[in-house]
């Protein structure tokens, strides 16, 4: 019947067109994928930098750290990325400090701690403890500092603490 042949004809044409479209899209996607991933990573880092040092709007990469400048081109602080051995692997963290070596923010870039246990170090509540602290404060309470460890995740908490302490050590040099 004429109707059935119409339906078949239209379906075939549309299918052909869609295949062409999907094919070309797949091609473009594959070609641009690496670049897009790169941009995403870059954005994450930018975002992370803004989070640990919000006063800065311009970041300049120095030898081993990143300097943060505000709009008037005055230096407002620095960002140090450090690595520390955690429970399940490497922990990479980003610490933002102002000019007086006081911590502004801490962000974890990479970690392999136990899900649900050790990865609680990613918790905002835990990390925000480090904000606005000097070197002397960066110790657990039982050691005279102001940081609370996470119950049940002692090793991960200790690792993170050590990571931040390492940053202070590095800054002193």
């Amino acid at each position, binding site marked *: 019947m004429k109707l059935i042949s*119409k339906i078949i*004809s*239209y379906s075939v*044409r*549309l299918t052909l*067109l*869609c295949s062409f*479209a999907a094919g*070309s*899209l797949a091609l*473009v*996607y594959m070609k*641009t994928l690496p*670049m*897009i991933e790169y*941009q995403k990573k*870059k*954005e994450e880092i930018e975002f992370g930098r803004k989070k640990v040092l919000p006063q800065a709007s311009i970041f300049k990469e120095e030898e081993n750290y990143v300097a943060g400048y505000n709009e008037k081109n005055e230096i407002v602080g620095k960002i140090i990325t450090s690595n520390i051995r955690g429970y399940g692997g490497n922990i990479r963290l980003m610490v933002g400090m102002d000019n007086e070596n006081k911590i502004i923010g801490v962000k974890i870039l990479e970690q392999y701690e136990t899900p649900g246990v050790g990865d609680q170090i990613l918790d905002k509540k835990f990390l925000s403890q480090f904000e606005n602290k000097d070197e002397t404060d960066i110790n657990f309470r039982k050691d005279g500092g102001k940081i609370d460890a996470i119950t049940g995740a002692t090793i991960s908490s200790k690792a993170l603490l050590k990571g931040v302490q390492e940053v202070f050590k590095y800054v002193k040099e």
Partner: protein
Amino acid sequence: MSKSNKPGISAPGTAAFLYGVLKGNPVLVLMIGLCPVLAVSTSIFNAVGMSIAVAFVLIGSNVIISLVRKRTPGEIRIPVFIIIISTFVTIVDYVIRAYSPELYRQLGVFIPLIVVNCIVIGRGEAFAYKNTVKLSFLDGIGTSIGFFIVLFVIGLLRQLFGKGELLGKVIFSKPALIMILPPGGFITIGVLMGILTYYNLKKSKV
């Protein structure tokens, strides 16, 4: 009418090309595709980026639509248009996301919105579906140039008077903030429309 030196472009070609720029200017005369114009014309960077994206989609879809027009029955032409246009828009989206994250951030949701931009579907339906590939190509170029000129001028005006800076140099230290807000966009478009209407009227009288 300007004279074209390119071999093979006859009068209907030049006509198709010029139509999109002046008499049939999409934004100022046909008044289609206004939504992105208002949203994206707050800076020259956005304006130029958007017009290039639209140009790519418009020219590409015009050409493909024209290519398949003989084999596209009327009943299914709208889905066909949409498939073609959205493919081009997605390609543009990937490319911008990969190579200019800044532009991607600025244009934001208006990139996918190119799919429903009246200019693209409008020219596809009104012209590319009924004309040869060559003419559709020229129409696409002409309309894109018309769109670009308008978007560029508006972007220039709004950035100059609304932000007071051009190419990084501050020109007005206390700019009129209204220009980068929606009212400023509407006012600018209105003024440009008035000028072009006046010009077209005068031309037709002569």
